[in-house]
């Protein structure tokens, strides 16, 4: 047996992963595409092959573009393992028998855990919704717009009853538009975009005017605004109810409190890189002040600080689906070069069209990032608001820990258990960083982020107890 199972494992089958796996495999690398979901597409193209929403006008052409990525993947010869959860990536104790450097991937498939040995890992782990902690956000009936969109894509479900969207960012408007097309009624949109953002974003407008977003975005916004009551300049927001949501209380500007009866509140204030796997693998990360988030540090080719690990797509910094696709191809070319399939000149030459497309896709991004930057109060909420849902830790408890001498998220974690629950900080990490930074009066860059640990996704004791599995076991799993 050779020292590895595959040359390349691509983790995540959104646009970056689909494009990267197809390109790498078509150029001769033995490639496996690993993804948690039962089918390819990631979050943006979720359920692209099976969605019950067959009317293409509902989800729109940008969604259906995802289908075009599936053919090349099929033709490339890449192995595709859907329903596979990756919970660890690490260097094994000893390198491969042939002397080559390898990486070991801990994964679970059909209830069985196994270790997979590869030469290179390309993480295409995508984005997560930025947490939107407001009083009452843990009430049943309050959920993320992203989660609601997944229900729409995968099951054709739209909320019934009085429904309100609140927050800021392109996805909020896209979801509203998709709901309208699907025939759902929206009672209101509470827009929390700070009014001052326009001033900051204005200098970035020229690039945006040349971007592909403009035409589509403007049309979509106008259509939504024509059909739904939009309340702008919302500065204060909370969800109320006994056991479940019954009302939303908000203020517009510095006006008086208003109350809206509601059964469903969908919250959204942008997305941030899903960096848990990269972080737990030891990849260095840096604070992005414009996008107000941590991102794994990568070079122009998506290579991280850990040898043999690359990143592409929103997981390396938010750029959107099209940018992710092109970045996936750029990263795949670099992997081909690193594994000796192509020389440097060939890599550089082949990357030119993808880099140009990537640049086009990113045009105007800075404008959107600046315009839709969430307000301070929604990133670092008031004391009584829960920030860590798993352990029910409030913003006030985090501030108190800072006063006692906790200077960063890791001390707060050890002290308060925030970030220690099953979500491993996905729902509180950005907030805890922001709260501590604001309380100390320093940049989030200085306070840092959680040091995350495998398993990055929960696995059962039974699965762990059955390790280690050999490569043959994995192949047997694959055949099922």
């Amino acid at each position, binding site marked *: 047996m050779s020292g590895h199972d595959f040359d390349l494992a691509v983790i995540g089958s959104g646009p970056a992963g689909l494009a990267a796996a197809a390109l790498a495999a078509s150029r001769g690398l033995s490639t496996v595409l690993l993804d948690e979901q039962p089918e390819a597409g990631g979050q943006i193209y979720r359920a692209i092959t099976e969605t019950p929403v067959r009317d293409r006008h509902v989800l729109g052409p940008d969604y259906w573009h995802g289908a075009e990525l599936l053919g090349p993947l099929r033709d490339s010869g890449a192995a595709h393992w859907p329903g596979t959860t990756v919970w660890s990536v690490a260097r094994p104790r000893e390198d491969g028998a042939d002397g080559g450097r390898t990486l070991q991937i801990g994964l679970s498939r059909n209830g069985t855990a196994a270790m997979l040995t590869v030469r290179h890992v390309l993480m295409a782990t995508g984005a997560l919704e930025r947490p939107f902690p407001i009083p009452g956000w843990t009430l049943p009936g309050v959920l993320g717009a992203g989660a609601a969109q997944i229900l729409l894509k995968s099951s054709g479900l739209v909320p019934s009853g009085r429904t309100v969207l609140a927050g800021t960012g392109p996805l909020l408007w896209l979801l509203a538009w998709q709901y309208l097309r699907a025939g759902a009624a929206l009672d209101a949109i509470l827009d929390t975009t700070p009014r001052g953002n326009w001033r900051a974003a204005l200098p970035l407008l020229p690039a945006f005017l040349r971007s592909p977003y403009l035409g589509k975005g403007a049309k979509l916004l106008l259509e939504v605004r024509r059909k739904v009551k939009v309340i702008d300049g919302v500065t204060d927001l909370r969800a109320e109810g006994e056991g479940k949501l019954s009302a939303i209380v908000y203020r517009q500007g510095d006006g008086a409190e208003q109350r809206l009866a509601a059964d469903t509140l969908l919250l959204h204030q942008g997305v941030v890189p899903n960096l848990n796997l990269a972080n737990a693998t030891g990849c260095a990360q840096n604070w992005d002040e414009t996008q107000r988030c941590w991102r794994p540090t990568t070079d122009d080719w998506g290579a991280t600080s850990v040898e043999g690990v690359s990143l592409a797509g929103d997981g390396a910094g938010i750029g959107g689906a099209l940018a992710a696709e092109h970045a996936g191809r750029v990263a795949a070319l670099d992997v081909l070069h690193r594994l000796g399939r192509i020389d440097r000149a060939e890599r550089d030459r082949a990357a030119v069209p993808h880099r140009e497309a990537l640049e086009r896709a990113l045009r105007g991004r800075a404008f959107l990032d600046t315009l839709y930057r969430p307000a301070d109060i929604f990133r670092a909420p008031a004391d009584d608001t829960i920030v860590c849902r798993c352990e029910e830790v409030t913003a006030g408890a985090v501030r108190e820990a800072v006063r006692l001498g906790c200077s960063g998220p890791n001390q707060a974690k050890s002290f308060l258990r925030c970030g*220690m629950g099953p979500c491993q900080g996905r729902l509180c990490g950005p907030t805890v960083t922001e709260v501590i930074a604001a309380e100390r009066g320093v940049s989030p860059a200085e306070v840092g982020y959680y040091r995350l640990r495998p398993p990055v996704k929960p696995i059962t*004791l039974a699965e762990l107890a059955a390790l280690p599995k050999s490569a043959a076991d994995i192949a047997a799993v694959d055949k099922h």
Partner: protein
Amino acid sequence: MASPTPAPSMSIWKPDVIVIGGGLHGCSAALHLSMRGVRVLVLEKDHVARHASGVNAGGVRQLGRDVAEVPLTVASMALWHRIGELVDDDCGFESHGQLKVAENEAELAGLEARAAALRALGFHHEEVIGQAELRDLVPAIAGHCVGALVSRGDGAAIPFRTTFAFRRKAIALGARFEEGAGVARVVRVGDVWSVETTGGDRHEAPILVNCAGAWADRIAAQLGEPAPLEVIAPMLMITARVPPFIKPVVGASGRTLSFKQFPNGTVLIGGGLLGRAVRDENRTELDFSQVSVNARTVWDLFPVMRGATIVRSWAGIEARMPDQIPVIGPSGTQPGVFHAFGFSAHGFQLGPIVGRITADLITRGGTDLPIQPFHIGRFAA
């Protein structure tokens, strides 16, 4: 003597003792010294409780210790049972006993012999119990377990919170802490120790305490005494919440295990299986083939846990001595230097007493407890 004008606070305050290392042992030494009016400066290269002291299993255990440690562990246990009086915080300490189960008669015979050996030395905190009482104490234990060794006064606490509480109380009593201050160089200048930090600061004090844990050998080397510690990374894992089913902390006699349930329902599984430590990068790497050994032990001993979900695993960085017992006491080569390190993955329970021992050595020139076995001179060439 002419000198540049320092900041006002620094011109008044000069430490009597510099403690190197802000783990539990450094914080405990700082607390006990501060309680006696000694001015202490703690230099911590990262932040307090960053390594083993903040992330260990939290076992507060007398059970099964090396006989040399028994007098110390018993004295420390008395402090643990009044920990709130010492540090103004209960440290999450709960005492529901610790046991070490026997999976067969041969193991049980070994436990009987151990208990008898301790009794002969005059210590009665370890007792052997049979299958029936084991069932009473731990109803979820697998049916094949035949008995256990139990130490009823043992328990568990929250490590980071404990270390933090020691630090806070020490500060309240006047100790000063500098975090992010690694020690670059230690030199004797006249009759004081001069400590140069990685940031270029210089601090002086007549007395130096080395509580630098997995980095303590580097301090000892500057003093000209070997400390052949091994840098280890004991691994732990924790489950999602499950309904409460067990109060005591459980270990095994024939294999390595430390198993306990927190009040919030999560279950901590450890026992000293090792990952990889990269101490110069403050980093540990987990070894899942070893983690899986631990998971199999739990599978065998606690059938109720088979469906549990592991949500996180981690490892801290610790120092292990060749003979598995710590270094405590005065330097073998230098005046005014005391060591407390190398606790070999079982130092948490000893924290309260070893700080007091160090304070006794510094302020009274001696201690009532037998610390000769821990002298660093045992490693001298």
